[in-house]
């Protein structure tokens, strides 16, 4: 289960890694139902990144897949298209940078990063999960 202690550990690691990459970013940790547990915005990071990081984490948690993969539902060539990605709700996003956190096959929460390019955000999430040694499965 996601708790505040683990969320703090993830955030500390994330901020350390972001500083190593020379980036400032916002990081959000949500629990298995998508509810916010902890959120940090580094000094000097643009204001909206905090909310975007939370959106990414929410999307990753409720779909149980990386936020970038959610866009497959909007692809007309894929089975299951017709899902209205744009106006579903004000949280859903398909921007890369949100990854689900799994502990021995069970979803315990998700992490969302925002502040760099999409590639950098995903890389940062992966680095954090690698460091914490929680398995992250790609869809």
């Amino acid at each position: 289960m996601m708790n505040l202690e683990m969320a703090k550990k993830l955030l500390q690691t994330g901020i350390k890694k972001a500083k190593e990459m020379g980036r400032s970013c916002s990081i959000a940790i949500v629990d298995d139902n998508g509810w916010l547990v902890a959120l940090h915005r580094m000094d000097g990071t643009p204001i909206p990144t905090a909310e975007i990081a939370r959106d990414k984490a929410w999307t990753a948690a409720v779909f149980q897949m990386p936020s970038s993969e959610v866009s497959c539902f909007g692809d007309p060539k894929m089975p299951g298209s017709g899902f209205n990605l744009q106006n579903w709700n004000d949280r859903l996003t398909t921007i890369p940078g949100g990854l689900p956190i799994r502990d021995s096959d069970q979803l315990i929460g998700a992490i969302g990063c925002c502040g760099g390019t999409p590639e950098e955000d995903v890389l940062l999430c992966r680095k954090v999960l690698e460091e914490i040694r929680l398995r992250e499965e790609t869809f």
Partner: protein
Amino acid sequence: MEELTLELALKMLEAAERWAKDIAVFSCSIAVVDKAGAVIAVHRMDGAAMATTDIAIEKAWTAVAFKMPTLMGSRWLDPRNMGKLIGDHAMGMIGRGKGRLCFIPGGIPITNEENEVIGAIGCSGVPSGVGDISDTSVSQAGVTALYE
């Protein structure tokens, strides 16, 4: 201090969490915002209700936007004070600020030496009215930690 940094925000959160855990014995959410009302850090303690994070952020936002503790604003919106305060009532305040305005006690602004607001802390999840234990006292523990 001139500006609230993440480091200072975490120091406040840690102190407030310790107070909530050891003295109030209640799980709650605590948020710190900067002088723009933008979130710096939010923590939801284990067992606190899920919606409390948003309420804590909104209390802190309101404390910055009105440059006063939300406890003071809540007096204007208390129906028991109708007609007792100087001037008119402020019921039209409900729902303002694009719905973000939250005059529930628990948000406290943080000021610098020149008395300018540089941020705020907000807490939600502690039932109020039992002795000294309330959202405001948890926030106050966070503010006090800044001056230690």
